[in-house]
């Protein structure tokens, strides 16, 4: 076991999570919102891995949870980018606040 207290790992992932939340609220461009979501997902995965390593080292549950989080993030990024590009083609911009028109 490496000699790093788990509280430090959890502090890092908590700070990364809430920096992601901050970006999610303040950003307007759809791509930067997507990047903030990736930060949040990454913080979640890091948290799972830390708990797995320090409290339940006899199995790999957190490890697999992080693995599936990464795959879900890949699928999510693929769909989000497909949607963003479809929006860009229809509206010619990707600003979340200027896209306020629905199909009618």
């Amino acid at each position, binding site marked *: 076991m490496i000699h790093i207290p788990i509280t430090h790992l*959890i502090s890092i992932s908590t700070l990364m999570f809430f*920096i992601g939340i901050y970006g999610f609220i303040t*950003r307007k461009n759809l791509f930067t919102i997507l990047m903030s979501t990736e*930060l949040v997902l*990454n913080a979640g995965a890091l948290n799972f891995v830390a708990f797995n390593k320090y409290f339940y*080292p006899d199995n790999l549950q957190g490890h697999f949870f992080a693995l599936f989080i*990464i795959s879900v*993030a890949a699928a999510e990024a*693929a769909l989000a980018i*497909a949607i963003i590009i479809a929006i860009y083609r229809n509206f010619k911009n990707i600003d979340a606040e200027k896209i306020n028109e629905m199909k009618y």
Partner: protein
Amino acid sequence: MNQVVFYFLSAVILVFSLLTVTSSRILRAAVYLLFVLIATAGIYFLLGYNFLAGVQLTLYAGGIIVLIIFAIMLTGSAGEKLERPSLNKFLLAILISLIGTVTSLILFFAYHSFPVIGNEIPATVKMVGASLINPGDNGYVLPFELISVLLLAAIVGAIVIAKKATR
């Protein structure tokens, strides 16, 4: 040595995640996010989860970030400057993030002495593979198959959205 590397990686994660959400150039924000993800892979290496770190590097750093940068290039928004958030929104976001951070950290520092269960097992690729196809206890064959359904849904969804936008 491990401590030095860990705190270096933590500093990289914190600085570059802050830059990701505050940078006014969209392409730079994407590259800063890349550094955050690589530093996270470094922490996985330190914890001994080598396969997970490799997946983080190939899928996150090599796949998702490249896709995001590619899409930024496609929409021609790479050179644009992002506008600053309005003061109200800025204060609201700071408030929410601070409340969340302080609450979680207080809760965690108050209750961080959980019991440690069992002996450590190594997370080699062999171990990961054996668990991945094991239908019994500590096996993950059902999530493994479900991931393929999720990916199928993502393929179909992406194609439908893309084809609809062309017409």
